[in-house]
């Protein structure tokens, strides 16, 4: 037996994947350098003051004028945007699957359309609409609506813009989630067990959509936390616009905040990934 096996083994070693996958190492290394260097350099830049290493850019943040106000504004906008988006999308998507399949292509197109209007153009259009207020509607009750929508303390117009910008991504995320759970069968099974319509949706469909809901929320959150275009052109000052204005006077602080916002995004994403994994393992074992 040994006589037979040893030549075979020699063959095997000669043929089994002789090529080293050098290209993979090279590709990953180059990519690693390109992506890590700017991050490392910014981190260094943010503490590299002329007089030596200093963490003032970070410690001075809280007392910086406008920092907290803009942060609160952004968080508020993010929260409201996520809520509005989910309240609009979830009932519509579930209903489309349960009762009005003919509306489905319509919803599909509507939720894809915002992709063809870049944020700058959308903002331009909104400004166009807002000008109608003073131009044509000065003496009508609609005018009050225009004023309310543009309230600088909480600009609803930004929420509208953000919901539209997040719509395509959130839609696709929720749609993928719904596709995986077969809503119709779930609801029919629940109804068969004696659950009412709303109860079936709340106790059976929504829990199964948890991953997709979280995913959509995260994407929306990330978008609002970083959105600069609409806010700056419309003249409000949420967090990203604040970073911009700080950048003009205090370069170190703006870089420090940039790094922090990157870390925040990262953290959110890891959180989401771990929630997704938990859910995945649960379905795998069930």
């Amino acid at each position, binding site marked *: *037996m040994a006589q*037979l*096996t040893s*030549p*075979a*083994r020699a*063959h*095997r070693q*000669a*043929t*089994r994947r002789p090529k080293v996958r050098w290209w993979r190492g090279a590709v990953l290394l180059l990519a690693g350098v390109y992506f890590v260097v700017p991050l490392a350099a910014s981190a260094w830049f943010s503490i590299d003051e002329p007089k030596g290493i200093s963490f003032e850019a970070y410690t001075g943040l809280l007392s910086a004028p406008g920092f907290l106000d803009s942060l609160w504004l952004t968080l508020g906008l993010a929260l409201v945007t996520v809520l509005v988006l989910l309240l609009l999308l979830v009932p519509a998507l579930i209903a489309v699957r349960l009762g009005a399949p003919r509306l489905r292509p319509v919803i599909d197109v509507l939720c894809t359309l915002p992709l063809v209007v870049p944020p700058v153009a959308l903002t331009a259009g909104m400004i166009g609409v807002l000008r109608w207020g003073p131009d044509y509607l000065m003496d009508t009750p609609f005018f009050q609506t225009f004023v309310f929508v543009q309230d600088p303390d909480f600009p609803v117009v930004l929420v509208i813009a953000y919901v539209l910008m997040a719509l395509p991504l959130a839609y696709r995320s929720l749609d993928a989630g719904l596709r995986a759970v077969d809503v119709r069968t779930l609801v029919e099974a629940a109804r068969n067990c004696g659950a009412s319509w709303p109860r079936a949706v709340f106790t059976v469909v929504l829990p199964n959509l948890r991953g997709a809901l979280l995913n959509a929320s995260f994407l929306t959150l990330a978008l609002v936390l970083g959105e600069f275009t609409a806010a700056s052109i419309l003249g409000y000052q949420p967090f990203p616009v604040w970073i911009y204005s700080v950048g003009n006077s205090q370069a170190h602080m703006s870089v420090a905040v940039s790094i922090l916002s990157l870390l925040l995004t990262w953290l959110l994403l890891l959180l989401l990934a771990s929630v997704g994994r938990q859910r995945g393992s649960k379905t795998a074992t069930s």
Partner: protein
Amino acid sequence: MTTAISPVTGATHSTGSATVEFRSLRRTFGATTALDGLDLTVRPGELLALLGPSGCGKTTALRILAGFEQHDSGQVLVDGKDITAIPAHKRDAGMVFQSYSLFPHLTAADNVAFGLRMRGAGKAERLKRAKELLELVGLPQHAGRYPHQMSGGQQQRIALARALALQPRVLLLDEPLSALDAKVRLSLREEIRRLQQELGITTLFVTHDQEEALSMADRVAVLRSGRLEQCAAPAELYARPATAFVAEFVGTMSRIPCERSGEGVEVLGRRHAVDGALPADGSLQVLVRPENVRLTPDEHGVALVVSASFLGAVTRLTVRLNDRTEVKADLPTEAAAGLPVGSRAALTLPERPVLVDRRTV
């Protein structure tokens, strides 16, 4: 050998009829042993089915032969030559995969002619050959279709044509029917067998479906945990299984407790002769097939009918003996009508049970 396949290259290398030998083939994946010293010879021109439960190593053996896996030790010989050093793309074996193996961006004809294109054959030659092969598998009108425009059965026919396009000496079929509907499976089964016999090509057919293996193959090799249990013609395998594993994997078996009685055994108060030696120790059971069990209505019989399932010409009755052993018996449907569920029957076993095994339950 066949008129349907005319030599493309002009060279008259013989299609099919290679001998394939696995010698002490061993392969482990991490902690699991896929092949544990497999010894098996496939004769020229035969269709040999590799049969076994999932994880028994049958697919691994096939993939080693095709060159997609490497063995740890042992040898694979084709016509006496060790093929270990030959890379997959130079091996002379056409393979049909389980499913979805057609290239989605190519038409049926281009899929079939793919190998010829890799060899640098001209367009005219490829077209001609693809046409021949599509006719061979009965889909000449599908030449221009894409895989997603064809049914699963059609796709597998095209895959078969592609595997045959380069006139390989060995044809490898890796559960080619398992993803298809029952009906399509039956017709394609016959189709493959017909083609294989027409071409006389040495064929290895991996399957976990015993019915498929028995109905198609010249010989069936039953594998268990990476080893060969038995390799024999279907009829022999069914009638004279070498081990209890083979007996129960191939066809249906009932186990009935029995006692030693000299060279034979005693079951339900009657002596039965046994082929071969009895297991040395332990309590024993006989293994019998349903069609060999006879039931006759008898108020005082040992068997109580507990269920019946209609199978067409025969009805399979399950009866319970006094010790709660359950036995299956196939009766002509008319005879079974005389034995409704709840009635009692006398039970007669065949003169020689299929096998005697150590008691497992």
